[in-house]
């Protein structure tokens, strides 16, 4: 988080039209660096867009045990910037708020905090069993709002997406993933001694 602020500070010094964009989860929004970074960006009116993806769980800890305020965007007020909560499952709504935040940044109005509400459709990791802490049915209900499904419906309704296009898109994505997987699996392991490289500049 402070790195994104540093990048935008440097860009501002060079008078470049750069806005830095940093994402994190609502869990990390409790770290000191989140608050120190936002405050720094607010004080110096830096072009930083901070997007918190709020999926309501930090592994197993629910939102009400993470935040003393109602929502992450409430925190923006303390750092002198707008805080916007948006439906993270609505790509067009997210596009709109990020676009506005960028315009604020470019025009010198400073940083913006965006909270995108979303859901986690799986356990946190392969070692996590989310049945221990999530109500049955919670995930099923959330999956119905999954943007991959709901936005596809929107695109069909507006005539943008057809069966052929969808099939072609799936094929293309699958091909990219398979190619990347093959490339990675066929790549040789690094030489053991390569572990010693690039600790410092090598001239």
């Amino acid at each position: 988080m402070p790195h994104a602020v540093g990048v935008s500070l440097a860009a501002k010094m060079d008078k470049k039209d750069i806005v830095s964009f940093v994402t994190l989860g609502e869990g990390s929004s409790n770290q000191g660096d989140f608050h120190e970074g936002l405050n720094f960006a607010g004080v110096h009116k830096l072009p930083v867009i901070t997007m918190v993806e709020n999926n309501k769980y930090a592994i197993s800890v629910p939102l009400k045990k993470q935040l003393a305020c109602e929502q992450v965007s409430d925190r923006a007020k303390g750092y002198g910037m707008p805080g916007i909560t948006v439906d993270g499952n609505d790509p067009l709504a997210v596009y709109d708020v990020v676009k506005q935040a960028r315009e604020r940044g470019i025009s010198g109005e400073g940083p913006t905090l965006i909270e995108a509400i979303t859901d986690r459709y799986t356990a946190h990791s392969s070692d996590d069993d989310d049945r221990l802490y999530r109500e049955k049915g919670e995930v099923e209900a959330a999956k119905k709002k999954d943007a991959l499904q709901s936005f596809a419906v929107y695109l069909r309704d507006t005539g943008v997406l057809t069966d052929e296009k969808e099939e072609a898109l799936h094929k293309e994505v699958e091909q990219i993933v398979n190619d990347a997987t093959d490339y990675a699996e066929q790549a040789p392991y690094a030489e053991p001694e390569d572990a010693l490289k690039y600790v410092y500049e090598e001239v």
Partner: protein
Amino acid sequence: MPVMSYIQAVTTALKEEMQRDENVFILGEDVGKKGGVFRATDGLYDEFGDARVLDTPLAESAIAGVGIGAAMYGKRPVAEMQFADFIMPAVNQIISEAARIRYRSNNDWTCPITIRAPYGGGVHGALYHSQSVEAVFANQPGLKIVMPSTPYDVKGLLKAAIRDNDPVLFFEHKRAYRLLKGDVPEEDYVLPIGKADVKREGTDITVITYGLCVNFALQAAEKLAEEGIDAHILDLRTIYPLDQEAIIEAAKKTGKVLLVTEDNKEGSIIGEVAAIISEHCLFDLDAPIQRLAGPDIPAMPYAPTMEKFFMINPDKVEKAMRDLAEF
């Protein structure tokens, strides 16, 4: 050649580097209009303006973290920690981020940040204004730690730190700021980071130390010279990574080694120096390696009696040197 105090050498190095390279900028607490609580950035705000001499909120992790971000972008930030004691909230940024950026990106990214901090006791600063913190960072590959002992070294090493393409911690002894004065050339020069420096040639005993203690050892050596004890003094200058070659050479030269630090004894830098000597110089030694260090207590006391008890001084060094010479 102008005579400068240790802190004037800091200010001069900062000023010259900012004039030389517009990517160099300063950020920290009270570094702007006030010119720093020790006046290390005196006059820089007036010369370079608030965009290059940034007063930050009182938040050390952000000072380090924002500096790291700017360094990754291509700037040359010089972050000031008001006291070395206050660097603790920034440890995560320095160790887990700055030190590892080059390595974890397989050399794609660099982090050319310099972090300055005044350390050390002897100024009635007590717990939160006297600590030596170098050992916290001195087993973190990716970091370089420089601790200069003279105004001449300050100017050359601080310039080298700012131009270095890796993160450098630059610890300045706050008691040295106005205590130590010396010749500092007006011209631009840099001194090599990673190299120790022989501050006095001698044949009877070797003293290896750094920072303010170098001055104490030099004072003690002059006294002992009158008794016919000729001391060889090696200033580590960079305490991480250590200049092993220079340490081995200095130890072999006399076969009797005294290591001095103001830091707490156990786990300090000089323990590593002792390990290097014992690995490489066993058959050259004529006495056990000796250590003179601060006591293993959690803080520099405030009471003058106890502070004096904690601190290294020329008398303590002189006694330790004489004892070793007589071994």
